[in-house]
């Protein structure tokens, strides 16, 4: 009995399978979509950023004004004047206890 082995020529496999190509295209597509989405979102955030920036400036100014107001009310000139109005005076004679 003769066994005849049939040799069929092997199909040449492509160096890079098609699925990799598809994957790259899909990745690029997703990245481009994300980029467009981020760009649009970021552009829309400009207004929000501007408002936040204005709010931050405004709060800093308000903080400075309040600090100054506290300093003015706590100044010794103001305290001396208010304490005099309330009837306080300098101690005339201090007694020391040994």
């Amino acid at each position: 009995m003769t066994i005849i082995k049939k040799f069929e020529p092997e199909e040449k496999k492509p160096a890079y399978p098609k699925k990799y190509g598809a994957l790259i295209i899909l990745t690029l597509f997703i990245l481009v979509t994300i980029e467009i989405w981020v760009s649009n979102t970021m552009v829309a955030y400009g207004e929000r950023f501007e408002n936040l920036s204005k709010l931050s400036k405004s709060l800093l100014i308000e903080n400075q004004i309040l600090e100054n107001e506290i300093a003015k009310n706590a100044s010794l000139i103001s305290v001396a004047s208010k304490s005099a109005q309330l009837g306080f005076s300098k101690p005339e004679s201090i007694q020391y206890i040994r």
Partner: protein
Amino acid sequence: MRILWIKIFFLLFFVAILIRLIYWQIIKAPFLQSLAEDQHFTESQVEALRGNIYFSDYSILASSNPTFSLFGLPKTLTKDQIMTVSYILAKVLAEDNEKIDDLAKDFINKLTQDLYWVSLKKNITFEKRKEIDNLNLSGIGFDQTNSRFYPEGSSSAHLLGFVGSDAKGGTRGYFGLEGLYDGELKGVSGFIRSEKDALGLPILIGNFLNTNAKNGKDLSLNIDRSVQFIVEDALKTGIEKYGAKAASAVVMDPKTGAILALASFPNYDPLKYYNFPKEYYKNSIVADQYEPGSTFKVLVMAAALNEDLVKPDTKCDICSGPVSIGGFDIRTWDNKYRPNLTMADVIIHSDNTGMVFVGQKLGLDKFYSYLQNFGFGNSTNIDLQDESSPEIRPKSNWREIDLATASFGQGIAVTPIQMVSAVSVIANGGFLMEPHIVKAIKDERGLYEVKPKIIRQVLNKSAGDTMKEMMVAAVEEGEAKFFRIKGFKIAGKTGTAQIPVAGHYDPTKTIASFVGFAPVDDPKFVMLVRYDQPTASIFGAETAAPTFFEIAKELFSYYKIAPSE
């Protein structure tokens, strides 16, 4: 032939397009680019905030106060809008005594000018600005400026100096701390350049150039605001009570050289400095040169004690009458003479002839050397802008009479800060300290502390202690004994120096002073009080001394120092 003409036509057409393209793309490119950048980019300067100045307890002495200027853009408004905007603004901004109609007319006049930008109102508060912002008016805007804010008013004016304008219209500090530390306080302005959209809003993914503003550094002072208040209050009362032309006082910690209080009158409002005469800007504690008179005797005596040339019980053998030197008669202030006066008595009675004796014992070389060692003839390096330093005549120019008069504080010029630094040598055991106003400089990177600096040792401890006791005796038995505070050991010396006028001394014009320190065993402060030309009495014992003791009494209470006797 037609084909040829068509070809020529197309060729010329393309050449024309090419030339036009070259014109716009190459020749006009920079101009167009700048136009585009103007349209796309917004640029703004971020003003650096001037640093704050704090008292030793970190309460504010000087800070920045934001104020706003309202401006209008006439070209962007129609006539109807101008009328509406002007009346709305006038309603918000009219002050108590201002009529709304008048203010509105003023705004209308300004907004109808043929200008792109007009200033409408300055010094608008933050509250008013917010109120106007909420109205969403078109054609107006605000510029922010920072003015200086002084919660204690004119307190410490001479110490602070003031902030004015420089030649370029920017801010600049003048005199005092604002002047000396201007570089540290003013900071560096920043710059923002960002891309904007059609609505003028920033494009976050666009080009963005940001140079951060660097705010000025904060100064923390050695000045104790309670001590400063006590000193200013006492001086204000004193200058009126004694009818003096000017008054000044300085309080220093003798161990560290830290200036605890420094005040002079008349003073000025640093916010409205331009309403005051320029002579008021000068800080007399560091800039005034005066003859110290008898307060100087303690330094000369300390020098002689240090050299072992005299002792407290050494007797003066030239004190039985006026001393004649170089054709001049040197007399005592009360024309009373006490033969065999001890050195302790010389200080107690403030005897000029006794000091001539001490001066002669020292001799010119040693006297001159001690003058320099005590810091006279050089600036103290106090951190204030306007310090002066009176020169000492070269040693070769000194005559015998010069040595004699200088030994009791006449014919020699000093500044109050030099005087108080020199007396602190006696108080602290013999060391000349560099006086300092600033305790620390703070910025975002950290804190730089100014450490106490010993310049040199002038006296040994024993001489210093002996001199202290002689000064205590001067307080307890001298001319100012009626004002002393019972129970407290205070060292001090009065001074009444006549003022040289046109080559001679005017007997009616004096500088009355008192210098001293307390408590003697562990001095907490050394203080100099000075009145310029007091009229109630010309003597330091009757003017400066009472003020000194009044301040000292309050300082004992403030520092919780109990009496030792």
